């Protein structure tokens, strides 16, 4: 209580109501990412009912995924302007309506609109503000909180997939979509949980930095504009301040660190979705049985969850906190390395370690994306930055599986696809690593140069004193 000032600035609670926020974000991840993955279960039903083939129905999944990521900046914008709570409740409402409307679908194009665009938009409005809120509420245990929150997609898929199958069997796809729409309206409950909090105006959470690592640079905050509004209540602003603020909100886009991070995210997103899509076809191609191939995917999903939580917990340890960025680079690099070994693995027994390792590091980096982003841009701009980050994921997600498919068709094997994925991931990691090394060298140079002026000024102080 003594921390609360008259203006209302608080230190990040790191617990207490923060855990409710984590629970809320967990449910948001379940309702958005897991439901998106479970939509593919409806494809067989859609194919039968609308007499279309696989490619016609597969567009729905791509549309939902793409719209969710493309509209992520919109989600963070609404979260900043109104509040994260309003954004998530609105998103829950929209996606619920989208699913309910699609239960009355009469054609596949209708489904593209309701399921693809409307539901995707609703998900986009929920996803970014919820993740940003977790970053606001936590400081010391940020990575663990994110790990738990992001594990929702894995756990959600694991639980929802059989449930959706059961719903389809009992109520057919129309009834299942209707009930799924009701389930997704729980996003409104998560939105209600996102209690607004106003942090102290300066950076309340000391960044895990040693002086050599450039990732500790904070964006200059202007105290005259209440930047706490990024997650706080509505304040009275006139139009001029609002304009200035929107410039202020996206100021981080010009930071060189963020640009480098953005570039690495583009490469990352190009590489990471391919193994998920092509692991099972590759396994079948190599001679693994259908059930074993499906089992590989299950292993991937379960180890993903474990990777989320354990890696988040690990990087919260004091000894590793300073090296969080290196842990992130390591996770991404190892993922890429796993992909490069695929051509050597052609039995089920050999593919299991691949699934385990790939799943673990996939879960690891997913939990660390918001952490690394918040380390660079700071808590105040986290919402907007996350919007941009997920926007950058959209186009590679949409484009790289078809490119992978084209590679498979032209070369006749899956080797090229996995090599592409591996190289994209490794180059993403190397980009960050090389920039970090360059910064370190620059810092060392600066330090060695600046030592001399200190000495001179010290002498100047001494000399007048003695004279």
């Amino acid at each position: 209580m003594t921390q609360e000032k008259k203006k209302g600035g608080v230190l990040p609670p790191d617990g207490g109501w923060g855990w409710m926020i984590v629970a809320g974000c967990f449910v948001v991840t379940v309702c958005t990412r897991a439901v998106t993955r479970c939509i593919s279960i409806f494809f067989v039903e859609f194919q039968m009912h609308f007499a279309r083939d696989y490619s016609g129905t597969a567009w729905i999944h791509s549309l939902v995924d793409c719209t969710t990521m493309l509209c992520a900046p919109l989600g963070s914008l609404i979260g900043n302007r109104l509040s994260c709570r309003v954004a998530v409740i609105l998103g829950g409402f929209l996606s619920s309506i989208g699913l309910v409307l699609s239960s009355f679908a009469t054609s596949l194009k209708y489904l593209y609109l309701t399921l693809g665009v409307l539901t995707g938009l609703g998900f986009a409005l929920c996803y970014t503000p919820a993740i940003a809120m977790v970053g606001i509420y936590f400081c010391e245990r940020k990575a663990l909180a994110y790990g738990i929150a992001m594990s929702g997609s894995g756990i959600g898929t694991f639980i929802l997939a059989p449930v959706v199958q059961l719903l389809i069997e009992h109520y057919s796809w129309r009834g299942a979509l209707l009930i799924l729409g009701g389930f997704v309206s729980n996003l409104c409950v998560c939105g209600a949980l996102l209690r607004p909090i106003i942090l102290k105006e300066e950076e309340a959470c000391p960044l895990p930095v040693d002086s050599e690592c450039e990732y500790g640079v904070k964006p200059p905050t202007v105290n005259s504009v209440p930047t706490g509004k990024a997650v706080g209540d509505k304040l009275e602003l006139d139009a001029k301040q609002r304009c200035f603020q929107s410039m202020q909100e996206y100021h981080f886009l010009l930071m060189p660190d963020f640009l480098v991070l953005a570039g690495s995210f583009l490469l990352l997103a190009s590489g990471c979705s391919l193994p998920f899509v092509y692991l099972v076809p590759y396994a079948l191609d190599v001679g693994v049985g259908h059930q074993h191939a499906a089992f590989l995917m299950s292993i991937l999903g379960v180890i993903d969850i474990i990777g989320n939580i354990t890696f988040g917990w690990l990087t919260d340890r004091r000894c590793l906190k300073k090296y969080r960025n290196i842990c992130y680079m390591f996770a991404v690099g190892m993922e890429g390395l796993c992909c490069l070994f695929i051509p050597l693995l052609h039995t089920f027994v050999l593919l299991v370690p691949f699934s385990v390792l790939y799943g673990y590091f996939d879960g690891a980096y997913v939990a660390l994306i918001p952490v690394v982003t918040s380390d660079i841009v700071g808590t105040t701009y986290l919402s907007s930055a996350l919007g941009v980050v997920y926007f950058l994921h959209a186009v590679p997600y949409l484009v790289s599986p078809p490119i992978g498919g084209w590679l498979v068709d032209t070369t006749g094997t899956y080797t090229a696809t996995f090599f592409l994925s591996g190289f994209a991931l490794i180059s993403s990691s190397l980009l960050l690593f090389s920039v970090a090394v360059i910064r370190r060298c620059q810092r060392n140079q600066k330090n060695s140069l600046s030592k001399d002026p200190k000495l001179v000024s010290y002498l100047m102080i001494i000399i007048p004193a003695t004279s």
Partner: protein
Amino acid sequence: MDWNQVWFADWATISWHTGQNQVIIEELAILTPQDIELLCNLTDIPNNPPYITGYWTKDGQEIENSEETVNRNNEQYILKKTFSIHARDLGNYSCIFRENQAQVTFVLDVPVIKDKRDKPVVSYTGDSVVLECKLKHTPNTWNWYKANNTEKELINVTANPLNYKIFINGNETKLTVLNLTEEDSGKYICSAEFDIKPSESYIELRVLSYTEPLKPFIAIVVEVIVLVTLILLWEKCNKPQNDNFSNDLCSEQTSNLTRDESNGVENNTARQRKLEH
């Protein structure tokens, strides 16, 4: 015997392992009435006797006069028999060697529609539904029936063009039932007509009304509204305690109380002193 119609079946090679009773099963799809030669080739018998006896069974019953003595031929014993297969002759034919009970079973049947949904197909009143049947072999034609208790009623598209559509494409068929009503629930039988015998499979259809999924949906929505209201109310109730104004109010009240208390104590001590005096 019309030699043009003799169809040499795949022959099965049995290797006899000591102490092992192997039963090998071969499935043969029969489309037209024909004569089929079934052949069993036994190898690797330990003592290599000069001849052994074998016989045939149909559906477990030994066929009369089917016992034969087979001579050794390059360490192989070949037992074969030609059967004339019509609709009533379909079944499980086995060749059994008496000495070592080695056995091969040939299952002669029309092609079986294998990928059958064991769960009923669900749909809603006013909606349409597609029922599908697929086979590996192409029949002469497909027919759809609706089962009414024990009877089958042929679905005639020309008689009911508004309600039914049948699509036939070689080895697959689709029945589209339009304008569903509750009476359309039941068993639908797809029948692949072959020369020898039709091959049938059934699909069960359940037609629900819209209120069925609506109940869980409304239950979940009510739960959501209740939870949201509870959470927002709880927050509002907790909020006044955090306001500075009410803090001052609270502290004022508590300081008043303490003053009253201390007054009360003073009064008591004063009274005690009075009493003591």
